[in-house]
């Protein structure tokens, strides 16, 4: 049983960090706005947290817009918040949004605003790592919406025939913006779309331990040269697609999912198994809250970046950016 080898305090801490962070984002956004429009991961935390847990520190993560956990588990919280504010201390000093930022230092593959366009780059990162002859695994997160793009097919196929060390994680929250996937695909399980010959597995995305277990296996397979795996994590988001959009989903369904809240489920399980005490949880929670609050305070008083930051487009050639020509 995988839960016997897990450091439960750590895993819970990861889960609580993500939950508290997302709650804070929501609170601050509603109270006074944040420059980056939040696309909340509340409700889906176990997917990213569980998938990241069994990885090595230098494995590469390619998060989707909504995989906040992946960012939080790799990047100092204050940098993330500054990234959302577009201030000087953010990872690119405000050049880019926090949603898509990349960092070789933190092992996060930069992404774009194009949903699903990171699938082939993630496969390519795995290819690059094979070329460099290291044993880093790449884990790429994407939604049910991204699975509808042709990229899903070509990336799976390329990774499979090249037997690349990739773990594909669909965060199937069953909504593509305001569209229910019921009208966007004609299958019950997105995993069925992938007949490419790679192993696929459907995972309970609310169960952080199930995510740990499935990803651990997939990462092992990748690392031992047996190629990619596709995991479909079934989950649900508690918030609308973005904080500017109204809620239009069925209330009963949402409530049913909340009954299986990933954080509460895990806490209940740990308490039941006597693997943690209420007091321990409270203390972790308090500490996390302080870290998060401090990060927001810092970002709110941070400076805007220097204009020079903008002119960071070519690494090898000096150009006159206003004319667009080489100097």
């Amino acid at each position: 049983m995988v839960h016997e080898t897990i450091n439960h305090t750590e895993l819970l801490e990861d889960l609580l960090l993500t939950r508290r962070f997302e709650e804070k984002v929501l609170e601050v956004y509603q109270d006074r706005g944040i420059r980056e429009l939040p696309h909340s991961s509340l409700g889906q935390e176990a997917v990213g947290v569980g998938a990241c847990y069994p990885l090595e520190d230098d494995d590469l993560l390619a998060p989707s817009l909504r995989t906040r956990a992946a960012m939080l588990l790799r990047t100092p919280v204050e940098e993330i918040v500054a990234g959302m504010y577009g201030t000087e201390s953010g990872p690119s000093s405000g050049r880019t949004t926090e949603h898509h930022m990349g960092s070789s230092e933190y092992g996060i593959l930069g992404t774009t605003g194009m949903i699903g366009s990171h699938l082939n780059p993630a496969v390519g990162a795995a290819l690059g790592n094979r070329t460099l002859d290291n044993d880093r695994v790449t884990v790429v997160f994407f939604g049910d919406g991204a699975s509808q793009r042709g990229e899903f097919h070509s990336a799976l196929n390329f990774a499979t025939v090249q037997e690349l060390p990739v773990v594909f994680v669909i965060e199937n929250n069953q909504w593509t913006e305001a569209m229910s996937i019921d009208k966007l695909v004609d299958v019950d399980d997105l995993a069925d779309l992938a007949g490419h010959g790679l192993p696929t597995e459907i995972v309970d995305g609310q169960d952080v331990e199930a995510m740990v277990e499935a990803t651990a296996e997939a990462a092992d397979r990748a690392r031992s040269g047996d190629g990619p795996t596709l995991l479909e994590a079934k989950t649900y988001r508690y918030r609308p697609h973005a904080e500017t959009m109204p809620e239009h989903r069925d209330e009963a369904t949402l409530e049913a999912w909340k009954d299986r809240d990933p954080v509460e489920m895990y806490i209940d399980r740990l308490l039941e198994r006597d693997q943690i005490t209420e007091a321990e949880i409270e203390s972790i929670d308090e500490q996390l809250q302080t870290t998060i609050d401090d990060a927001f305070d810092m970002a709110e008083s941070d400076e805007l970046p220097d204009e020079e930051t903008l002119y960071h487009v070519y690494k090898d050639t000096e150009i006159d950016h206003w004319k667009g020509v080489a100097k």
Partner: protein
Amino acid sequence: MSQQLDAETETTTQTIRESLNQALHEELERDERVLLYGEDVAEYGGLYKISEGLYEEFGEERVFDTPLAETSLGGTAVGAALAGARPVVEIMYADFLPIAGDHLINYAAKMYFNYGDETSVPMVVRSMYGTGDGHGLHHGQSPEAWFMNVPGLKVVMPSTPREYKGLLKGAIRDDDPVIFLENKMRYGESGPVPDEEYTISLCESDVKREGTDATIVAIGGMVYEALEAAERLSEQGIECEIVDPRTISPLDTGPILESVEKTNILVTAQEAPTFGGFGSEVAAQVIDDAFFYLDAPVKRVGAPFTPIPFAENLEEAYQPTADDIESAVIDAIET
């Protein structure tokens, strides 16, 4: 030449958002071959609410939501148009147009040429551009120049509510494939829109303001910036003529050349980076065909050669505005 508003036309003040919604409504009603689809355009009414109410009115065979797959949007629109329908698809942000680039550049643009008969591709791709909302690198790019060197495509960038409506109707009725670019920062701009039914034909430049001292060729959202700059310059005794091409490609250069022959000074204004952009083509056309009328270097206003930055102050530094146009005109005149 373009159909100007004359004094007697009855108008109502509308936002661009309203005028676009009306245009779609009228065309869906007029012609059963018209259909509208895209991501979130039906039940939700469009991310920016341009197609609100249309799904309810015309039903799911005429207005529908699609999977997240822009190559399907571009590709199926080509096929539907070739089969004789008049598809209007929304590709949410113009930044996503490259995903459908093959279907636009290699398919839509070339089928009239490729067919053995008079079959053409009457499709419209609506898409949004425009900076200033902090959406970052990938939700605001002006893509017109990416498609200018593609014979067979038409690229339209309206400016005022009246033109958004008339040109969208014109684009839907046009037999050639049209990329119809909407500035998402301007959906709330309002202005007079004729009460009577009207359309505006593609490929006709329009003079938005008359003047004798300098010509400003501005496109899309930059037309508003040019008008503002012209007001300020007028206070300094400089009268600018503003030409709004409205269709970027194929470009109606006549009114531009005529204007430059009168003013002898040319400034261009676009939101995209200057290098490799629309303004460069205008400058090149003028220097070929009106060279001896030009009194000064042509100044091009545009963004720097960088992606669109996220931070507030960086985005401000990036975005070209009325200020930049004003300085460019003064610059040109003083040279």
